[in-house]
């Protein structure tokens, strides 16, 4: 039985430590797991963009520590393969699909970094296993302080729509972007600004 709290047997904390160690020594059970790979990519983006800021903020205000934990848990939860989303096949003996986890990874990648945004969660609402069924995408994001929230939300919506159109055949009815948090702007390495 699959453990919902782990990705192919690895917790998000283990994956975070593995990333810290420069992915050395190489762990085949992580490198050969698509779910772990999706989570590692999300964690790497998280750190590259806002990790230092969020970590400092979390230390300053304990309430934010819980939010960070939720983001990390969301990454782990959403990287699971989930449902199979059908792709039109050339004949009836062929079945093609993209996993829900891979699509959530795409959505997260599309949203991360837009206006310093960080995707907190991504949910595909509707029966994605049936071709042609309308699907809504629900995303929560944290946006960098000072950004125009409406513009950032619109940019994220457009990027998600473009990536879903390229990589899936989902009938996307609506993309809901909710700004659930605002975080400080990351200072460039070396300080100054």
């Amino acid at each position: 039985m699959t453990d919902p709290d782990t990705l192919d047997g690895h917790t998000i904390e283990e994956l975070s430590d593995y990333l810290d160690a420069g992915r050395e020594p190489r762990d085949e059970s992580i490198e050969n797991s698509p779910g772990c790979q999706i989570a590692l990519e999300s964690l790497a983006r998280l750190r590259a963009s806002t990790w230092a800021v969020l970590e400092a903020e979390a230390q300053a205000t304990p309430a934010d520590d819980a939010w960070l934990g939720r983001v990390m848990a969301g990454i782990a939860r959403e990287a699971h393969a989930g449902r199979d989303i059908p792709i039109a096949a050339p004949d009836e003996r062929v079945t093609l699909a993209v996993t829900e986890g891979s699509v959530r990874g795409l959505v997260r990648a599309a949203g991360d970094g837009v206006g310093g945004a960080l995707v907190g969660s991504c949910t595909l609402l509707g029966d994605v296993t049936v071709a042609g069924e309308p699907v809504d995408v629900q995303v929560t994001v944290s946006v960098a302080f000072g950004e125009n929230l409406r513009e950032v939300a619109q940019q994220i919506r457009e990027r998600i729509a473009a990536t879903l159109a390229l990589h899936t055949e989902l009938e996307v009815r609506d993309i809901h972007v909710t700004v659930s948090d605002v975080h400080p702007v990351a200072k460039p390495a070396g300080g100054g600004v």
Partner: protein
Amino acid sequence: MTNDELELSRQLTSLVRSLPGVHDVYTTGGLVAAATMAVTNLFDDEARVAVEGGRVSASIAVAAGFSAPDTLRATSAAIAAHLATAGRTDEIAVTASRIE
């Protein structure tokens, strides 16, 4: 898998890995399947495409810059062509488990 299926799996894994747009091929069935295969001495890292009971299953990562649907269709077409040379008409399932 029989020995013939294992050899076919190796051929198909190599074929799928070489296709444009395919970044990686994963063990079908995830790590539970891989662990089971390891215990039963059936695990072969070069045989990741499952061939069993008239069905061929592949799980792939789609490379950046490639469309997932196009890559999936090209992969299934390449598998079908390879099977045809052996006179086989297995069902084919290809899943994109990760998209870069």
